């Protein structure tokens, strides 16, 4: 009798552990030898701060849509060769790329194209053992039904955030860093391509202010630059960063002002940042971003 009870309990524990962790892919012995952790020049806490602070994949797309720019497929990275991405480095970096593209597609409600991107993301996420956070079935259903688009957007971005958080919590910040760098590069590519075809002062300012986050991302990549692939990534990002060195961001001081409107609390910021970027600087950044993005996508 007691033996039976033990067997039942063991079986239940086995089932519970499969369900609760959702980490079945983590038990696979995946070779991460192409990624080294490196001797950190910045502390783990600082690194967490930087990775965490990178804007969401949908934010640049939201700006572009807010400017009234039409959707275009040509800004998207192709998903055809996803099976040829074999290293953890490539998989994590492309997760970021496709995450940003998915944000762009969702922002414009282009559900027909979404399936290709969620399929690619699922393949890559499984490849670096974070697929348990990407609910492919629900996302596919939401995309196919073309209803509940808010849910599709929420679930896409939330899954992405969970993957990133899981990697950071499990001492795999190198992969998390690659994901957010992928998001940043693709967001920068979208902004610069749109700026080339439909120039707008807000877009130019947004591109100029990327100096703030790019210098932080460079710090992270330097941490892992003993690895050849990270070293190459650093070289490419530095090509863009060099162009930002002369871009000035000044601050006009002011005090925040709270107010209540129709029961909603609003804080109006009166301190203002001003980006000084010339047309020449912008054009060089547009050109170099395109070159770097296209090179990195094939790396």
């Amino acid at each position, binding site marked *: 009798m*007691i033996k039976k*009870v*033990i067997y039942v*309990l*063991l079986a*239940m*524990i086995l089932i*519970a*552990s499969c*369900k*609760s962790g959702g980490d079945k892919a983590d038990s696979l012995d995946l070779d991460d030898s192409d990624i080294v952790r490196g001797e950190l020049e910045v502390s783990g806490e600082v690194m967490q*701060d*930087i990775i*965490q*602070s*990178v*804007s*969401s994949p*949908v*934010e640049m797309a*939201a*700006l572009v849509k*807010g*400017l009234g720019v039409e959707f275009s497929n040509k800004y998207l990275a192709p998903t055809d060769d996803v099976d040829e991405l074999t290293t953890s480095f490539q998989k994590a970096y492309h997760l970021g790329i496709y995450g940003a593209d998915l944000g762009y597609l969702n*922002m414009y409600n282009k559900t027909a194209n979404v399936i290709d991107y969620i399929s690619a993301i699922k393949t890559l996420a499984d490849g670096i053992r974070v697929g348990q956070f990407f609910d492919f079935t629900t996302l596919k259903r939401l995309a196919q039904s073309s209803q509940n688009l*808010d849910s599709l*957007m*929420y679930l896409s*971005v*939330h899954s992405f*955030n969970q993957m990133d958080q899981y990697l950071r919590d499990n001492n795999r910040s190198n992969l998390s860093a690659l994901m957010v760098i992928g998001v940043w590069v693709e967001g920068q590519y979208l902004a610069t391509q749109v700026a080339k075809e439909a120039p707008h002062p*807000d877009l130019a*300012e*947004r591109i100029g*202010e990327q100096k*703030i*986050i790019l210098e*932080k991302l460079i710090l992270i990549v330097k941490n892992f630059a003993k690895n050849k692939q990270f070293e190459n990534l650093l070289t490419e990002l530095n090509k863009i960063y060099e162009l930002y060195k002369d871009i000035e*961001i000044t*601050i006009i001081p*002011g005090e*925040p002002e*709270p107010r209540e409107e129709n029961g*909603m*609390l*609003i*804080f*109006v*910021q*009166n*301190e*203002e*940042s001003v*980006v000084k970027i010339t047309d020449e600087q912008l054009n060089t950044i547009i050109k170099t971003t395109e070159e770097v993005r296209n090179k990195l996508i094939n790396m």
Partner: protein
Amino acid sequence: MKKLIFLLSSILFVALYSHIQAQDISQVVAQCAAAADAVYLKDYVVNLDASTPGGAPNQARFALMLSKNTKYRFSICPAPNSEGEPILQLYDMNVMVGSTFIEATGKDFHMFDFNCQKSAIYHIFISFKEGKAGEAVGVLSFVKRL
């Protein structure tokens, strides 16, 4: 043998409890994001112990990049069994530029909008009133371009 059964039962309980808790907090994130009625960007899950008597209240800190000419919404939602009432505060360097709790009036809000005019890295602090223990979710959403 009874000890073994007790041990296995305990492991089972912990495993199931963790699973249920993870589901619970995911639901809170989803509900909090939906209540914000704006484009979800990020969430910040916190689970803090009670502060030591007389000590500074425990708080969680998160860094985030915000962009000029953008209206963001910050929401805070307690987990169903949270003992403490959560407060979310937004800081630019050492200056508080937003909060769900207005100390001068003692008024609480579940969310606030922030009309950002300065592109920079900000910090969110989440704590619980009176230094109580608690679990909560903060959500950052995009409302519109200003």
